[in-house]
């Protein structure tokens, strides 16, 4: 006889249980990270207070946290829409770039003026992101090509395409051949508030969350997405066109991610340049996973992520800790969040087994 344990699936439990698990996960992560801080000679309590102060302790800190959360909310929503149908859009990163390219093309070359410019840029970003993702949608719906691979690989193509535009045809003619587009005219910039970098992209993100919520909970299409996600065979039996639905949901997912590209270039960068997104499209996958089924959850997790990323700067700024520290810190928090998520869905049960079993 020996003692072993078995992984058993369990009910997801109440929303309260899940929220508590997430909070507990963060606390455990902070506890473990505290040993790292101690090893570096920094009092963890002081450091955590400093992180909070940096991210939330001033108008500036709050504005920066919201600026950081903006692309995370939008891309998190994009990824979560497809997740609801058990479709894995790993390509939000590339779709952000395509959206940014679409918006930049309109900003630089359309010659439009104030009332029309921003809506045109928005539409271009929406379609560019949607079109990009719909390639994966078509391949999946028509020929059963795995969308994880296609969306992932198309990220690299999208980033290289943006580089091509920046280094080539869209390069600023007055920029000494540096790889940057010209800066946008005022008509192509989102409004900024409170003399900070907080821009109306944040409200676009909130609006996207509302739209996604209404789509999912109040429309037939949303019902189809959820139905196909939970049981594709039954959905097909009920007469739903699953192929078309897969194509459309990936296109929608990409289009939403494209909006994040619009928001970043029109609200923050005011031009297209290399390194537009430091991996928002990948962080979005984690956000969508943790937020599960709720648009509100995406907002909350994105804000938490924003606090972590903005506050994390203070580790370097205040204590001159190496940048590896900030990475380790973020890594620990994600690790425990995902571990916590595992224990929401599964339990470990100790079982006695025969030695030869």
């Amino acid at each position, binding site marked *: 006889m020996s003692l072993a344990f078995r992984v058993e699936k369990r009910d997801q439990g109440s929303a309260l249980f899940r929220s508590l698990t997430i909070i507990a996960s963060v606390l455990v992560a902070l506890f473990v990270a505290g*040993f*790292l801080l101690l*090893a*570096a*000679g*920094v*009092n963890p309590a*002081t450091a955590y207070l*400093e992180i909070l102060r*940096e991210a939330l302790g001033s108008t*500036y800190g709050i504005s*920066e946290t919201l*600026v950081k959360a903006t692309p995370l909310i939008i891309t998190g929503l994009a990824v979560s829409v497809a997740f609801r149908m058990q479709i894995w859009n790993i390509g939000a990163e590339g779709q952000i770039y395509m959206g940014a390219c679409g918006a930049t093309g309109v900003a630089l070359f359309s010659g439009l003026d104030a009332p029309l410019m921003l809506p045109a840029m928005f539409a271009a970003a929406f379609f560019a992101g949607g079109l990009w993702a719909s390639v994966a949608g078509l391949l999946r719906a028509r020929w059963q090509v795995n969308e994880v691979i296609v969306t992932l690989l198309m990220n690299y193509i999208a980033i290289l395409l943006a*580089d*091509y535009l920046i*280094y*080539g045809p869209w390069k600023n003619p007055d*920029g*000494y*051949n*540096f*790889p940057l587009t010209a*800066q946008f005219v005022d008509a192509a910039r989102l409004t900024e508030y409170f*003399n900070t*970098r907080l821009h109306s992209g944040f409200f676009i993100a909130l609006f996207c969350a509302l739209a996604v919520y209404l789509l999912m909970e109040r429309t037939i299409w949303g019902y189809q997405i959820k139905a196909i996600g939970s049981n594709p065979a039954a959905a097909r039996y009920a007469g739903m066109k699953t192929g078309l639905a897969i194509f459309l949901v990936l296109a929608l997912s990409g289009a939403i991610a494209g909006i994040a590209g619009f928001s*970043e270039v029109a609200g*923050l*960068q*005011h*031009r297209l*340049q*290399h*390194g*537009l997104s*430091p991996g928002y499209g990948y962080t979005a996958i984690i956000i969508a996973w943790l937020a599960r089924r709720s648009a509100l959850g995406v907002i909350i997790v994105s804000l938490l992520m924003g606090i972590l990323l*903005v506050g994390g*700067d*203070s580790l*370097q*700024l*205040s*204590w*001159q800790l*190496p*940048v*590896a*520290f900030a*990475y*380790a810190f973020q*890594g*620990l928090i994600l690790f425990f969040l995902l571990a916590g998520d595992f224990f929401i869905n599964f339990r470990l049960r100790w079982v006695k087994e025969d030695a030869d079993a």
Partner: protein
Amino acid sequence: MKKLLTFLAALALLTAGCTNEQKPVEPAAKATAQPATEKQIKAGFIYVGPVGDAGWTWSHDQGRIEMEKAAYVTPSTYIESVPEGAESARVINGLVQKGHNLIFTTSFGYMDATLDVASKNKDVIFMHCSGYKSAENVGTYFGRMYEPRYLSGIIAGKMTKANSIGYVAAFPIPEVIRGINAFTLGVRSVNPQAVVKVVWTQTWFDPGVERDAADSLLDVGADVLTMHQDAPATLQAAEARNAYVIGYNSDNRKFAPNAFLTAPIWNWGSIYSKTAEEVQNGTWKTAQIWSGMKEDLVQLAPLSEKIPAAVKQLVEEKRKAIVAGSLHPFTGPLNDQTGKETVAAGVTLDDSALLGMNWFVEGVQGTIPQ
């Protein structure tokens, strides 16, 4: 891979177990309260890579340490591996909030962010490295690295036996292109048969990609390599295959004790100390500084013993000529890659032509992505 590195770093930190408790960096309220004549310099630096890169960022950090020797400079702060683009504005602003009154942003991609933060903080002085935009409180600085690049080209041209030299290039921007051209002109000044083969990595610091690029150049027969990145991968590739190599950024010969010939290197301390002094005594004015070997901002690292004495002497003569102003690498006649004369005999390219350089000279094998 990044995750693995993160884990290893965390482990190293745990085991290192340094016990001195560090104090948060104090806001410089005291400094600003003092009269202007005794102004203390509290400097902040934004780095694009880790200080341990043994290259670009390391050379800036050496300059920072050099600057701190002045009595009026209080301990400075640096933030490493800051992403270029809009993301950097928050970090630069963080330095302002912590009371830094002189801020150096040491990569091209910080240009807009530096100008943006500077426009909202007129009492802080900013110095942006390698850009072209300045303001009342933002100066720019960079070095004429093409001068030592030209000298290192002379050495490469003399040392190659295959007449094939490999150049592991970073991004196709004017600074890198200018370096390739100056190097090639140096090569061809002593060896008109030699060619310089260019491979782009589109990286500043990615040892894996850069090692592959260096190996690919060795595979096609190059027997001398040089590079423009911040990681020492090209040096290590040359060492492993018994080729010669010319480094960059800092005297990084320890990565290739046998292969190393020399390296065009930065001496940022000269400009950082000078700037701190000017800010301290109130004489600082915005300017676009582009200094060369004459001002000692760029240098050639000590030459390897493997280089024959006659070549060393030739390089020394040319170095003196550049410092004296009697030799400029970009004086015509210069031909482009197709052999067409683009700069007439006796004409020297002016700074604006150099700063926007977007064409290769004759002898370069490779293309500039357009």
